[in-house]
């Protein structure tokens, strides 16, 4: 992979959501999805292994779930860039908890592709 390629890890138990997010990410120049985790545990392990530039994190996943995964990733790497992409993102309590856990932004499902692209680009420094 080219050195200046940005690596993105997608954590979502839905294959459909993961597919849609992959299309958005890979539609951005110099961006590549390097892994797809389907549980919170997997996302933490894959983060440590792949050290991606950005993680898209669903919250409602089997196992520990996305919120705990955010905390564990941030504990391992306080500079980790995580954006929550979740159907629960529209609720104030979820948004607050995710931001306090260390997520940088929250996108609610169903998401608007243009807005999602803009958020990903900004967090990856590709503006």
């Amino acid at each position, binding site marked *: 992979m080219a050195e200046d390629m940005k690596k993105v890890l997608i954590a979502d138990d839905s294959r*459909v959501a993961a597919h*849609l997010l992959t299309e958005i990410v890979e539609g951005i120049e110099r961006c590549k999805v390097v892994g797809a985790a389907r549980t919170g545990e997997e996302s933490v392990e894959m983060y440590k292994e792949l050290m991606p530039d950005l993680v898209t994190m669903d919250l409602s996943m089997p196992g520990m779930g996305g919120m705990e995964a955010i905390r564990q990733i941030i504990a391992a790497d306080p500079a980790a860039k995580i954006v929550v992409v979740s159907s*629960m993102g*529209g609720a104030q309590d979820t948004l*607050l908890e995710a931001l306090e856990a260390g997520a940088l932004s929250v996108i609610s499902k*169903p998401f608007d592709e243009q807005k999602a692209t803009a958020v990903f680009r900004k967090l990856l420094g590709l503006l």
Partner: protein
Amino acid sequence: MVPKFFGQYLLEREILTSRQLVEAINYQRSKVLKLGEIALSKGFLTEKDVAKIHNEQKRTDMMFGELAVRMKMLTEEQLQEILTIQQNSHIYLGEAIVARGFLTLEELEKYLEGFKKEQILVPPIEVMIAEEIENKETMTVTVDMTCKMLRRIGDMLSKTGQLRYEDKAAKNLGVIATLDFKGDVSSRYMLNCSWNVAHQVARKTFKNEELPFDMELIADTIGEFVNVTCGNVRAKMLELGKRLEIEPPSTHMDSRTPEMALDKKEQAVIVPVYTPIGELEVALIERK
């Protein structure tokens, strides 16, 4: 467009940073008076009573007001009175943002106007459940959100039919997706979808009118549709003062699960939904 709250609107537009938003929400929360403090100021409880209730709370994990009534320290009327006072002590997020100095009042008014304009694009609740049923509010929000998502994701208009009860099994119309609600509402959401409707949702989700009829992929899409719908139901219920948690969905195709059997102690409240290309059912399965 899905309803969202003002804070998310400001965050999306980078008007506030995530840190500023967290600080403003926490400031907003700190301004809400505690029920114990209000009950003390009204003379309904002594400090000793409040301490007793707090101790009991640690053991039972119940809400302060509910527990105070159960312990016969407050009457229902007194609880209602202090809840009203608490409600009135609430400040809006915008006020908290201005108080913390993140926006001026003029800026706040300008952004609020933009936010309101965007919210007007959200269709008003169109589903009315006429029948008197338990959990009517949850059922109304659930059916309404399903219809909104059918329009938003599946590009389908829909209308609801006559509500009915089922206590043995639900015949699978094609693909069934279920998702458990926990918390203040304890029930199971069920979407029972004909293949025609399910295929249309998948075509629109993938923005591919030629999407092949792949049953596994379509069932997965319905699972995600239910996940998105219920996440938005959760946000709406929270606005109405009810907290519910959602579990990941599971899907069942008619070839493997011709009908969804109910436990002897369960009952399904079913609302049929009709679209121009096929039917579906939205149900809440509850303990009898």
